[in-house]
Each structure stands twice: as C-alpha cells, then as structure tokens.
C-alpha cells in the first residue's frame, strides 16, 4: 500500500474522533459558560464566589496541565478517565471558563431598564434571567463565543498528549513510519481549516437567524 492509501483512511478516522469530542465539548462548554456567567452576575455571594474561583482556576491552568491533571492526576486518586473522557472534560472546563467571560460581559451590558421592567411584572430574579436577560445577552455574546468555539476546534489537537487518537495524534504516529511531514501536515491543516470554516459559517448563520429586527446593525 502506498502512502496516500494508508494515510487517508487513518487521518479520517482521526478526524471522526476529533469531531466526536467536539460535538459534546462545544455545546457543553457553551452551557457551562452560560451557567458560570449567570452565576457571577445573578448569584448570591457564595455562588458568585464559587463560580469566580472556578473560572479563575480553569482559565489560569494551561490546557495541557488540565489534561494531565485529569488523566494522570485523577488516576492517582483512583479515578480512571479514558483519553476520550479526559479530552472532552478538559475542553469543557477550559472552554466554558473562557466563554463565561463573554456571557458575563454581555449580561452586564444589558440595560438596567430590562431588569426593572421584568421585576415590575412580578418575575422572580430567575425568571428575569431566563426569559429576559439571557435571550438578549446570548445574542450579544455570540460573536465572542464563536471565537472561542473556533479556538476549541484547533486546540482539540492537544488531546494527543493523553493518547487520544485524533487527527494530530494519528499524523504524528504516521510520520514516524513514512517521513513525509509536509504532506501529512498539509492534510491536517486542510482538515482543521475545513472544520473551522464550517463552524464560522454555521455560527454566522445562527447570528443572522437570531438577529432582532430593527435593533442591530446589519451583519450581512
């Protein structure tokens, strides 16, 4: 078998593995970000403190360190995560913490009048957050979140450090057999570019779909 016949199926298998992490980790990161961002604005003092500590911690750790901590560190405590579980969890913790700052900023940018009007109708703080503030804040946070989502697609290549067989991991192994780094990494680059481009288009379409008529400047 030649180089291409062998490499293409292998790298596609890696790509499927990469996607398999991302389809879980991206939505979960966004959900965590919304929860953390909301908690840091709307939570009572202890909840705020916990959420802030969480964000500061996982934003402060390099992703590689988080991956090692979850994989080898937890194993020391008798908790064994598979490479897949490790990668997914690490991306959620790290991505969610980063993204939460966009959500927090967006919530804080909503005019106080929206909150007053909600409370005046008799909404609880939680109802106000869910029905009035978040639908507007998430729209505002979306461009920033998109940025982080694209980062996450690219940084998913770091999962190789815990032995997860994603695009980059299979490529590295392959190069040790056929020394053709240019071809191999060009294929990798093309695959990542395809994923990030697809995500960028999808997210822009979502932004367009969620626009509020009359309120926002045109994005098209």
């Amino acid at each position, binding site marked *: 078998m030649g180089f291409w016949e062998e490499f293409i199926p292998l790298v596609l298998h890696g790509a499927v593995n990469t996607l398999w992490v991302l389809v879980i980790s991206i939505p979960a990161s966004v959900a965590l970000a919304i929860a953390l961002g909301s908690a840091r604005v709307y939570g009572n003092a202890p909840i705020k403190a916990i959420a802030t500590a969480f964000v500061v911690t996982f934003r402060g750790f390099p992703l590689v360190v988080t991956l090692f901590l979850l994989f080898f560190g937890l194993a020391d405590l008798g908790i064994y995560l598979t490479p897949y579980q490790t990668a997914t969890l690490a991306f959620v913790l790290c991505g969610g913490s980063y993204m939460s700052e966009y959500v927090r900023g967006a919530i804080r940018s909503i005019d106080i*009048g929206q909150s007053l009007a909600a409370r005046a109708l008799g909404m609880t703080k939680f109802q106000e957050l869910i029905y009035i503030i978040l639908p507007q804040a998430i729209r505002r946070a979306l461009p920033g979140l998109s940025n982080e989502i694209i980062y996450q697609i690219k940084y998913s290549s770091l999962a190789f450090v815990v032995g997860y067989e994603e695009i980059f991991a299979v490529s590295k192994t392959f190069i040790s057999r056929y020394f053709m780094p240019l071809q191999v990494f060009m294929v990798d680059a093309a695959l990542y570019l395809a994923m990030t481009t697809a995500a960028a288009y999808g997210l822009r379409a979502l932004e367009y779909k969620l626009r509020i008529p009359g309120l926002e400047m045109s994005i098209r």
Partner: protein
Amino acid sequence: MGRGSEMVGDEIVLRVENIHKRYKDQEVLKGVTFEVRRGETKVIAGPSGAGKSTLLRCINLLTKPDKGRVWLEGVELTDPETNINKMRQKIGFVFQEFNLFHHLTALENVMIGLTKVKKLPKDVARKKAEEALLTVHITEDLWHKYPAQLSGGQKQRVAIARALAMDPVIILYDEPTSALDPQLVGEVLRVMEELARKGVTGLVVTHEIGFALEVADEILFMYGGRILERGPPREVVFSPKHEVTRKFFENITKLYGGK
C-alpha cells in the same frame, strides 16, 4: 375635580405611610404619606430631584424604603413576609424609557407576564394580550413588530398594554411622555385618559398640566422629598398655598403650554 371622579369609590387600594429613603448622605424621601382610592387618578408633580421616581419605586419595592409602610388592598408590601413578586403582578409600572423587552414582539411583550408570571395558558394569554393592545389602539399590523420597529408613542402604548393586561389594581406611570417627541405625547395621554375614564386606578408622575387638570382627582406636589401641597388640580395649579408651588406651575405652564 377630575371627570374620572364619578368612578371613585371610598375603598382605599393603595396606602403609603411615612416613606423615608436615603442615598448616602442625601435624604431623598423625608416621610411621604398619601392614599389612592379605587378608580382614582392621582398626579404627582414637582421639580427634578424632588424624589418622584424614587417614591414610585418605593411603592412596588423596586427600591427598598428605609422606613415607612405600603399597603395594597390591605396587604402590607413592606412586610418581609409578603411575597413581593406576587404583589408586583398587581401593580402596573410604566417607565419613562418604555423598557419594552427588545427581543420580543409587541404581542410577546404583553404576553410574557401572562404566560410566565400568571401562568395562563398560551391561547388565553394571547387573547388577553390582543385585547389590551386594542385598548391602547395598537392595531394588528403592529403586533408582530419588535420594539425597535415602533415609534416612541407606539412603544409607550405597548408598555401600557403590558401593564394593563395583568389586570393590575393600580398603574404607576413615571413621566410616561417625557421621552417622546411633542407630536407623540398626545396619543399616549389620550390612552391614559381613556383608561382613567374606564376606572383604571392610576398614580401618574407627569408635568402635563393639561392632563392633570382634565383627568386627575388630586395633585400631590412634591418638593424636597415631601408632599408640600395637595388638593384638587385647579386649586393646586391656580391658587396654591406656597410660593414654590406657584413658581413651579408658572414655569411648567410656560414650558408645556397647559390649558
């Protein structure tokens, strides 16, 4: 006396007693006491900084008064045991800056309190919301527009419908026409007047002397955190007891061209 007065019964629906509020070293409300009867329209007037907005917000506890008590239909709102969210449903609030929910259409703005707070079924809520919108003369062609697609006058009428649809005991209006272009003020005042005539109880902070003279049963003139003077509109506007009151209405009349 305002023409709404034939609707006014003896039943006191809102009682405000000795409200005090301080921001840092500035005492904004220095003991305000009054009551509103069912069906009545009361106007609060007074110079900027007199504490009018603060007073309205102390009534539905959007701002917590430092001292004093508020009752709505005999229930003490200032009692920490009272479920304030439940009571706020009965107090309509109309803001100077409209504060419509930007991400919802006109109809959805009116419906959301009914579905999420009052937990009415969607079809019932929709029917009620449509009725409220028609009452404030927002016709069907505007129901699916977003706030940013409406004129100021339309926005404020939707905001009034949002308050009205909740079947409130009273509607509090905080300078509802101050943010509007002069030619849009009339349509909002007309709706407020119609509601007053139908017997909807209202407490209105406004500088619209014409509205006060035509519609109000009483004017409360606030000055420096107190009600300095109160009485029938004509008396307070044309023959007030205090010099500051006279000066204030003289200036307002010049500015707003009151009748």
